[in-house]
Each structure stands twice: as structure tokens, then as C-alpha cells.
């Protein structure tokens, strides 16, 4: 393919206008010895038909499961058809960042609405226009806390998603902040006593997740109290936003920042990306939070309109003094989330309740198998940990039947031997669950 529309004649005319005999002349600034004749080892061009055939072939080298029982930070939820129809509007997806507000009211208003929905959902006053993903949103909250308080220690619950912890560690290392992990107790929640012991005046933030990596709901309010008593920030994360359909938002329990992964809101699994980093905060951090913000204002005739605002926080104005370096974000994923949330509306509550029901059913059925035990005691949303005689074998069996099984917890928690983390969303039917149990029992 060739997407440049230039005809021979166009090129000749343009060369003449530029005063050159050949396009090659335009590259004279590049030292001759570094100029290539031809790119090495790039395959020959393809027609559109060949391109799609090639990609289709690659996509079919993947095995698409009949059923996915893994959550662990990425969730298989139903995406209403409207979402795709909207984000495929060329005016949305082929636009750049809305720097020119007057011809970008569409995305600006949609993002303003998204910010509002996220603030409501998380129980916070403000939310930004998106971050790269849940993990980097959490890391940014940690860095921001440290910078704001001028403190250098970050505490993170061990029950936070392992990859989130890894990302927080990377961001903190680059800023020379210390990171300290607090274990969970037998309920599956963060060990509050150990946290209390670790809290000190140099702690900038405590990072927790709820429901946490084990699906367990953390008790945020006492955590907030403990954290605030040392003047530190509480950063509360979530990985499956649908939980907010029924769970009390961390904002209501005193968190300073609520961050999370918005993939569940209308974004496909996509093998891990693009996803949607959610970042919500208390009003007082308005001028310090990373990422873009859309604000409402008026035009000279008093009509309401929307603009990117408080860009002084952003790197392209503040350069090295910016609070974050994020520039391109995940706007289209945020748009999808906005459409998703507007589609479900109050039905998000019903959806969350359905997730709980499926999960409880799955859990009950699995725990009915001899040798299977609950790992934690605290309440869960749509994920839960169970231990069983041979975790790997379970997944092997499921795999044979085209099912992506549970997340094997020993991978990141060697202390949790033979523990599996199962997830059941609305996409899993009773029939599926019964089949899974049969497969696991070896009955199939």
C-alpha cells in the first residue's frame, strides 16, 4: 500500500516549487555516510487484501478460550454494542488531543462528563481525563504524595496487584523513594497492626487496593484514620470498576486519591492494553494532579463550552517543574468508559450484584470438591482465592477444554501454595460453572 497521494506529476511540480531536482536533495543535512539505500530486513509491501489476510492468520494463531476464569486485573465483561459504535465515529478516533477547543467540543464535553461520572463513582470531588493504566495511575499517586508532602517513604499493601506493586517500585526507584510492603492477614485484608507499626512521619502514602488482588474487600475507613493520623495520604485502588456498582467508594471512607483500572468499563481485554488509568482526588489537589483536566467555561456569548484547563500543571508548560510527564493519555478508552457508564446507569448496581451472585455460586461449587478450601475469610466481590490439592493440574484440565482457568497465586505469592484466584463475571453462566466443576473433578 501507499497512502501518499502524490502522482508523478505532483512530485515534479512540487520539486520545482521547492527548487530541487530530486526529493533526495532534501536530505542533504544528513551526513552522507549515514544515508541508507534501503531499509534492511523489512518485508515487501502488501496490498490491503494481503495485509488483512496476514493479520487474520496471526490472530488465529491465538487460541480464543470458550471461557475465562481469570480476573487478576483484567476482566471479561459484556460490552454493550453502543460503545463500539460511538468510539468508531471517525470524528472521535481520528482526532488529536483537543488543543483547539472550538472544534473539539465533542471530546471535551464527553471527557468532562467522564470526569464527573468517575468522581461520583469513586466518591471524590475531581477526576482527571485518564492515565495510562491502573498501575501507572497508582504509581503517579505515590509520587505525587511524596512530592506534595516532601516525604520519601511509600507503604504498599502486599495484597495490591503484583504488577501494580512492581510499577510503583519502578517509579519510586527512579525518584529514590523507599517502598515498604505490609502483609495481609488471614482475612485477606491488610494487616492493620503491622501497618500501624510501619507508619511514621516520613511516610508519604499508603497504597491499598479494594477489592484487593485476592478479591477481598478492604476496610478503608480505619485505614484512612490510621494513615491520616501520620499526615500521610491514603491511595486506594481498584482493578474492576464494576465493583463500584455496589461497593462503598473509597472516597466516602476517607481516601485522598482513588486510582484504578477502567478497562472493565467498556474496553475489551485486548491482551492487556490499551487500558484506562483512573485517577480521582480530593478537590484540594486540583492544581497538582497529573494528567489532563477538562473544565467548563463560557464563550464570549455566554454559551457553555469546554476546554483543557489548568495546563500549567502539564509538562508542556512546566517542563521539569511539572508534577508528571504524562501527555498522550487514554482518551478513547475514557470515552468508551463514559459511554459504558451512561449506558448502564443505575444498572451498574444490578450488574455488580450479578457478579457477586455468580461468584458466590462458583465458590460454593468449588468448595464442595474434596480438598478445596477457602484461603481468606473476608468478603469478596467477584474474585476469590481457594486452595486445592494440585493447582497446576486444575488449570491443565481446564485448558484442555478450552477454558482459561484461574490465576495461580504462587507465581507472585510463594507463601500461598496451591492457591488459585478465580473470577466469575456476568459472562459466566451457571452451566459454565457446573461444567468447570465437573472438569475439575475429573468427571469430564
Amino acid at each position: 500500500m501507499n497512502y501518499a497521494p502524490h502522482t508523478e506529476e505532483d512530485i515534479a511540480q512540487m520539486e520545482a516549487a521547492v527548487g530541487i531536482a530530486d526529493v533526495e536533495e532534501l536530505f542533504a543535512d544528513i551526513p552522507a555516510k549515514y544515508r541508507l539505500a534501503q531499509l534492511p530486513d523489512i518485508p515487501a509491501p502488501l496490498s490491503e487484501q494481503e495485509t488483512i489476510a496476514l493479520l487474520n492468520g496471526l490472530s488465529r494463531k491465538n487460541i480464543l478460550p470458550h471461557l475465562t476464569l481469570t480476573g487478576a486485573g483484567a476482566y471479561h465483561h459484556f460490552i454493550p454494542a453502543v460503545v463500539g459504535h460511538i468510539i468508531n465515529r471517525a470524528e472521535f478516533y481520528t482526532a488529536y488531543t483537543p488543543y483547539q477547543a472550538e472544534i473539539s467540543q465533542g471530546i471535551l464535553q464527553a471527557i468532562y462528563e467522564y470526569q464527573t461520572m468517575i468522581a461520583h463513582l469513586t466518591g471524590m470531588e475531581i477526576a482527571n481525563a485518564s492515565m495510562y493504566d491502573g498501575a501507572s495511575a497508582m504509581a503517579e499517586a505515590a509520587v505525587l504524595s511524596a512530592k506534595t508532602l516532601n516525604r520519601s517513604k511509600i507503604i504498599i499493601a502486599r495484597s495490591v496487584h503484583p504488577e501494580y506493586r512492581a510499577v510503583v517500585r519502578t517509579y519510586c526507584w527512579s525518584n529514590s523513594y523507599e517502598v515498604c510492603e505490609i502483609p495481609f492477614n488471614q482475612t485477606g485484608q491488610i494487616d492493620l497492626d503491622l501497618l500501624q507499626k510501619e507508619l511514621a512521619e516520613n511516610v508519604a502514602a499508603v497504597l491499598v487496593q479494594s477489592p484487593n488482588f485476592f478479591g477481598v474487600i478492604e476496610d478503608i475507613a480505619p485505614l484512612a484514620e490510621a494513615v491520616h493520623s501520620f499526615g500521610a495520604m491514603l491511595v486506594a485502588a481498584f482493578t474492576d470498576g464494576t465493583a463500584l456498582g455496589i461497593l462503598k467508594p473509597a472516597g466516602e471512607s476517607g481516601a485522598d486519591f482513588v486510582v484504578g483500572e477502567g478497562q472493565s468499563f467498556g474496553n475489551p481485554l485486548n491482551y492487556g492494553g490499551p487500558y484506562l488509568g483512573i485517577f480521582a482526588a480530593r478537590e484540594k489537589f486540583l492544581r497538582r494532579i497529573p494528567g489532563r483536566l477538562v473544565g467548563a467555561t463560557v464563550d464570549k456569548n455566554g454559551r457553555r463550552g469546554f476546554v483543557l484547563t489548568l495546563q500549567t500543571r502539564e509538562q508542556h508548560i512546566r517542563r521539569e517543574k511539572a508534577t508528571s510527564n504524562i501527555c498522550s493519555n487514554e482518551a478513547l478508552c475514557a470515552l468508551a468508559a463514559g459511554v459504558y457508564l451512561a449506558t448502564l446507569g443505575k444498572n451498574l448496581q444490578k450488574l455488580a450484584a450479578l457478579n457477586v451472585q455468580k461468584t458466590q455460586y462458583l465458590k460454593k461449587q468449588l468448595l464442595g470438591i474434596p480438598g478445596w478450601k477457602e484461603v481468606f475469610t473476608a468478603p469478596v466481590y467477584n474474585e476469590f482465592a481457594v486452595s486445592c490439592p494440585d493447582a497446576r493440574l486444575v488449570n491443565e484440565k481446564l485448558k484442555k477444554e478450552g477454558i482459561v482457568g484461574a490465576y495461580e497465586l504462587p507465581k507472585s505469592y510463594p507463601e500461598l501454595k496451591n492457591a488459585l484466584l478465580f473470577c466469575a463475571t456476568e459472562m459466566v453462566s451457571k452451566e459454565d460453572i457446573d461444567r468447570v466443576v465437573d472438569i475439575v473433578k475429573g468427571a469430564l
Partner: protein
Amino acid sequence: MELIFEKSRPGRGAGCIPASDVAAINIEAVIDRKYLRTELDLPEVAEVDLIRHYTNLSRRNFGLDLGFYPLGSCTMKYNPKVNENAAALPGFTGLHPYAGDEWAQGNLQLMDEMQQYLCNIFGMAEFTLQPAAGAHGEFAGMMMIKKYFEKKGEKRHRILIPDAAHGTNPASGALCGFETVTLRSNNEGGVDIDHLKSLMTEDVAALMLTNPNTLGLFERNIEEVSRIIHEKGGLLYADGANANAFLGITRPGDLGFDVIQLNLHKTFSTPHGGGGPGSGPVGVGKVLVDYLPVPRIVKTDDGYRWSEDFPYSIGRVRAFYGNFNVIVKAYAYIRSLGAEGLKHATQMAVLNANYIKEKLKPYFDLPYDRVCMHECVFSGSRQVEENGIHTTDIAKRLIDFGYHPPTIYFPLIVPEAIMIEPTETESKETLDAFCQAMIIISREARENPQRLKDAPLSTEVSRLDEVLAARKPDVCWKKS
């Protein structure tokens, strides 16, 4: 337009949830009431109203598919539809990131080949596809540099950044705890070599160079720059946002760069989505390979798999493996164009930029009058002085002619900057018509300046009060 909240009516709704097929349970029996929320404040609208709301919003947005979008530094080239279709294949969208490598051999092969292609195009030893955007890639790249020196046991505190650089460069450097020092440009828009020499010490970890720079100019003294940096043990970082200027023409790795971040959403034609998602792969030379983020793909006899087994890695910069779906589009692009197509694209992009430069030179100040690469930067100073018209007025007036304005007031070193990047996918007719509009506007600046100040005249809202927005921020709607 009304907000979706203003259209909400209690009792309405679009999405309907399937009835449960498992035993009904009382939620409070499994989750303590103290964990449950008491109200859920989301819009309640019917599907038809929802669709109309967002469809009409989309019509208040300008996209590349509507017309010319010469936003400098952003490489708003046409986003081929076949790439969209490829990325939407269920085999690509449907897989869980933890599905396990056996399920994902197609994805892994694609990512592995993509890394290889990028290595070949940019002359680097290895690539990571993990970063989610350009700035994220900068951050990852700078961390690798930090790690490199840490590993060597050298403490270097400073990095050099030209005054023309994009704001993310110093921000990314600062995020890694480096002190950033500004490097001056010379009078032909390149690196001021003497200044560079004076700044380059053994405390300097790296120079972050954009080449061609944000003036659209290629650094003629790149060999010398590279020598100066490397002689002092420093590393050379390339901001690859402008890579559309040299695909198939030259390779940063050959020019001496040790690390480069790309913007697939610019150079490799993936759509920008109104602000993202993008993708910011980072390529490194041999010296930095050990520090790449994990996980990395390794090829074994039974296929591809992910590995975290790289002890010197900077770790992860995000969860999972990168903006995979965006990478699919860029992969499709590279395969459709092939080596020749990529080179041709660059050639036409550069020809287009020079064509515009020549056509508009008589009407607008051109601070650096040299052959440019993929973009050219004018200054609106003449219009300020002679007509009291600012670059922003020119930009807003262009909207009335059906164009997205160029990037303005950037780079900061050009007063009243007008940064025009046409890209290769625009035809001569489009450029001619655009230049014609610019010329008319330059005349209007003299003859009817008020019209420019009132512009845009053709949009649903006229110029918006940005000062008010910043002074009394309203970033979240509240029921009144």
C-alpha cells in the same frame, strides 16, 4: 449541548442486565453493609438518547477524516482503515493478558516481529513495546540510562535538553531525579556546539535530543554532538516523535543514539483517539539492553514466551505488556508499506513540508530559512507588529476555512510560533488550498483584523474563556 446528566430521567435506562441463572442471594449476607454504597449517581438515559448524545457530540469534533490537520509535532497522517479492522479481529481483542503464552502465540509472534522491524528501521539492538505513549517511553528510556550509571557505579546528576525540546523531555528527566540543564540552539536552529561542549561534563548522564528537532530541522552536526557526549561517557537519547522525517533515510542507531522512544500514534499511523491511546516503544543500543523493562519476549523451540528473568531490568512501567491493540495497527502499517513504502512516506512528508514552507515564506516570517524536514515553523511576529494580530487569531481563523490549526506557540524559542506538519498523506491540492487560506488570512490580518479576532465564526461555540476556566475551575458537574 445539554450534558448527559441533564438528559437523565429517573427510571430510564439503556443497558439491561440479564436475569441471574444462579441461586438468588442477599448481597448483605455475603458483604457487610458497611462495605456497600448507598447511592449510585449515574445518568439514566434511553439508548436512543444516548446514541444521539454521543453522535451529536462527535459531530462537534474535528478529526483527520474530515480534513487537513497540520498539527505540528503530532504527525496527523491518515489512519488506514484496514489497520482498524485488523486490530478489531476477535483473536486480538478477546484474549486475557494472563491467558498463558500457549494461548497467545499469534500475539507474541506479532510483538516479537514488531520489535525486530523497529530494530531494523531504527538501527537499535532491542525494543520494548511496553510504554503506553511517547512520554512514557521517554521515562522508561531515561530510567534505563539511570540504571546504566547506577550499575556502573557512576553518579551522574544532570541531563542536557535543548531549549527547543518538547516539554515532556525535561519532565521525564525530572521524574527520574535528574537535574535538567537547558542547551541553547544556535542561529541555524541546531545545537550550539560550544554551549554543548561547555555543559558536557562527567556529571551529565545524557543529552536528550530530538532530531530533526521541533523546528523540523536536522542536526547537521550530529556526528560531533555524538562524539562530545560519548567522549565524556554520556549517552545520547533520541526523542523519536519526529521519526516520520527519516524512515528508510537514516537510522538513529547509526547516528550514535543509544536509546530512542517512538510514538506509534504519530509515525506509524495509529489513530490518536482524541488524546490517546498511543504507544511508545523504546529502542536501545547494546549498552542498554540489560535494563529494558520486563517482561520481555523470548523465543524458544516451542514458541514464544514471556520472561521476567532479567536481573538488571528497570522493572515494569505499567501492568501487562503495552498497548497491544495499538501495536497491531502499527504492525499492519509497517507490513502494508514495506521498506519502500516507509521511505516513500518520509520523502513525501518532507517534500510536503518544504512545499508549504516555500509557498508561505513570502507571507509569514520564517525564523530559520533552511531546508526543513517533516515540518516547518513560521513566526506570526510580523502580523503582531504590523496588524496587532496574534498567532492564536490566525489559528482560530483557519478553523473557518475548514482546517485544523497548526500547533502554535511551540517550540517556545520561536515567538508566536506556527508549526506546520502536513505529513505525507496530504495531496498537493490540499496543500495548495491550505496555503491559499493562509495567504487570505495574512491579507485579512491587514484588511480586516477584527474578523480574525472574532474567529472562529463557524463553530457551535466561539472563543472560550480559558482564563475563567483556570480561575474558577469546574471539572466536575454538580446538580444545581
